[in-house]
């Protein structure tokens, strides 16, 4: 709970929804979508190393594998005594959700994968969207030229007069990352190969695919759909990798349809 600075709200009645953020931000990322579900028990968490998570909990060895984060989520869901919650993960967190479902098949009621990719690097016939060199270059730039990244990863104070509701709440927590954790997660995210884990998912799964997502292209979404037996693939009109930010209502509608 405290380790993940979890926010739990809403009534007991509806299906519990656990929202988990992806690389580069924190739980605030899910606010626009989560606020569309006032009739559900909603849980928003920060992965260790991000947002308001407990800085002392960071362990480079544990989080050198996505399973480290998956174990955290299992612990959290268990401790909150959520009944068959739906795990909603963005990007790398969608793979954390897959690992949770694989490790504890009875724990989740469903999975929502937004922009999932089990492997970013083109390998054999598989098209992940990136060459090995590109990923190497990316990781090098995160390692060597961290200044460019950290000026964005470092906390940004929101000052948007048009959206004062965020300004207040997110003032001290918006997209904050421990640089070391961010670097590690970047490495784990872009070098992990979770293709074999997909087949272990037995719960109903929604794959949310945007158009023109350069990070998780459509053929990757199709691959994930093909690998997970009880899965449904939804194409949004939104483009890019962050529909929950750029098209929160459309994203929320897709999730709502899936829950129904």
């Amino acid at each position, binding site marked *: 709970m405290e380790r993940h600075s979890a926010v739990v709200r809403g009534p007991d009645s509806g299906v519990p929804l656990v929202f988990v953020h*992806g*690389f*580069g*931000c924190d739980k*605030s*990322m899910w*606010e*626009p979508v989560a606020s569309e579900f006032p009739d559900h028990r909603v849980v928003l968490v920060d992965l260790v190393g991000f947002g308001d998570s407990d800085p002392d909990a960071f362990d480079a060895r544990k989080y050198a594998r996505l399973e480290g984060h998956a174990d955290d989520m299992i612990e959290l869901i268990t401790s909150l005594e959520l009944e068959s919650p739906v795990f909603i993960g963005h*990007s790398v967190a969608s793979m954390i959700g897959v690992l949770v479902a694989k490790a504890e098949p009875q724990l989740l009621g469903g999975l929502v994968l937004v922009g999932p990719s089990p492997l970013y690097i083109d390998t054999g016939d598989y098209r992940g969207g*990136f060459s090995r060199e*590109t990923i190497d*270059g*990316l990781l090098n*730039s*995160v390692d060597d030229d961290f200044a*460019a*990244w950290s*000026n*964005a*990863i470092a906390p*940004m*104070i*929101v*000052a*948007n007069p*048009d*959206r004062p509701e*965020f300004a207040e709440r*997110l003032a001290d927590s*918006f*997209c904050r990352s421990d640089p070391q954790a961010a670097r590690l997660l970047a490495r784990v995210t872009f070098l992990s190969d979770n293709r074999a884990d997909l087949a272990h998912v037995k719960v109903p799964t929604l794959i949310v695919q945007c158009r*023109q997502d*350069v*990070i998780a292209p459509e053929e990757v979404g199709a691959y994930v759909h093909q690998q997970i037996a009880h899965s449904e693939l939804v194409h949004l009109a*939104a*483009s*890019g*990798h*962050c529909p929950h*930010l*750029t*098209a929160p209502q459309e994203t929320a509608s897709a999730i709502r349809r899936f829950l129904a």
Partner: protein
Amino acid sequence: MTSSLDADVDLAGTVPAAIMVTDLEGKVLAANDELRRWFGATEVVEPRAFLDRLAPSSRIYYESVITPSLCLGGEVPDANLDMELEAGLRHTLWAARCLGDDTACWAGLDITGRVLQQRQAATTERRLARLQRLSSGLLLARSAPAIGDALLAELVDGVKADRGFMALALASGELEVVARHELGGDATSVGPVVGDPVVGAAVEMQTAVFRTVELDGGSGDRSEWEQVAAIPLVGDGILGIIGLRLGRSAEYSREEQQLLIAAADITSASLARTMLHERLETVARRDASLSAVLHAMEAETSVRARAQRLADLLVPDHGELVVVDLDEVSPELAGLRHLDRSKEDDIRRLHRHLIGRGTGRRTPRPGNVADRPVDHRVPTPEGLSAAGVDAQAVDAIMNLGLRSVARVPLVARNRRIGQLTLASASAERDSSGLEEFHRRLADGAALSLDNARLYEHEQSIAQQLQAVLLPEHLPGDARYALAHFYEAATDVGRVGGDWYDAFTLGEDRLALTVGDVVGGGVTAARTMGRLRTAILAFAQDGRGVDATLASLDRFAAGIADAFAASVLYAEVDLVSMTIEYGCAGHLPPVLVAPGAAPVLLDGGRNVLLGLLQGREPSVATSGLPAGSSVVMYTDGLIERPGTTITASIDDLVRLLADERDLARRPHLLAQRFASAQWSDDTCILCFTRSPASPT
């Protein structure tokens, strides 16, 4: 007051910044002229133009950082994005703010120049930091391998090389690897090998060489290649070389090349300092070694033992194999020592090929002493074959693994006496001063060997002289028998002047004498000879013991070297069987007669020769019963450590009382009575009257 701003200026069109409006997904809704120029678009900019132009890492950055910032925070204050534009890869800086209607307004600047400058500055800073660390690392390194390790640890990491080595130039011109470093720890290969043409080129041109090499099996499209760098370490000539190999189909950037060259410069200076330090230490060590060796040689007195000692002392500090050849001690080697003693016999067999110039006794080359080359050379199979060494011997020589051989002539008293050969299996890195050291070593050793030779020579002359001057055989007939024992001092430094003699004076008279000249060596031997001859001459006239002794005293007084000699002179009347005797400072003989206790014949006492000054010498007479013996001797028999001469004489008398037989058998007597080692000449003369002889 607002006149200038009121002017009809199209800000979006003229400002040298890209301006655009996008939706929150990054689709371009409107763009200014500058942005159109960036994209190479004439009129309309495609909605995805912006996203599509982002470099992959910037795309990921956009999705994971910028989109959340824009959507949640409403603005992006500062974002660096790499873009593929018409002008190529450009570094751009953007700021954006949401307009409230799900659109955002962006302004971007091309900051490529500044970024490159910053990166350059950062690179320079990193390079300086690295060189600084290297410098301080090298300061702590006290040996060439330590310098190599410090250098490679910093370099291989600094230029992301896969592996590298540092090799130093040996005196022979070969390169010897002293340090190697490899990323990942697999140190089986060292990257560019010493024999690599790149390394050769760098050494020859004394300049850094960077070369791209296709890997075996490379398809030719440079997908599999490495860049090899060879940077010479230049000081007073080529000190060595650094070799690096950069795999992963990457190239050294100009900055990295500069870093390598700068690092090599620092290393060269450090290496030169260490080498100077080592050289000074070497000189001091050699000096100490030289005096220790020469001093230790003195413990041996013979030439051969001294030569062998020299060889023993020089292995292994000055070579694995040391051979001392002496021109006058051939064909056997005077001295030979190899670290592995089991190889010494082989080496003896190979000696002719390895060191000698021919077989058998070598004739010392006269003159030409000023021309004394120190011959440092490494035996090569070709060179040996060319010199006429047979194939089997070549193999054997090469099997010894000798890499440097120094042959230094041994010259003493302006004369060549032989040759010193020092062979080593390890090649010298720094041969400066070695030749000089070998010359000094050879000069000192040669003088020491020559001194031993001269000394041996003198001893040998003295011993020969002494042998010549002693009687070849003693007289004897049925009435009496004579027996003698003579042993020169074992300490060759003290060839004494003892003598004995016996000769007949007519048919019935026998002269006996035992004497001892002060001093030793050739001079003592000569003096003894003169005294013996004089006694022979003075006694011939039959003037008797007293007259002979008086003449001898006068004679000795006039010869410096004979002064204070001691002598016993006796004449036996073979008819009356009496002995008349006189002692000039000499020890009294012992009479051993059957049925009586042995007695000292202690009459006829006189001062040492040359001191009578005209006085009559005193003489004494004693009867010689049948079967009796007279034992005459010199002080070599009597002198024993810790005992006075008187006590020792008493001991002798007691021994002869117990074992009367010893009075006739001087060898046995000497063996029983003399101390273990003859520190002085020992001479015994025994006269024995036949038991059956008529009176």
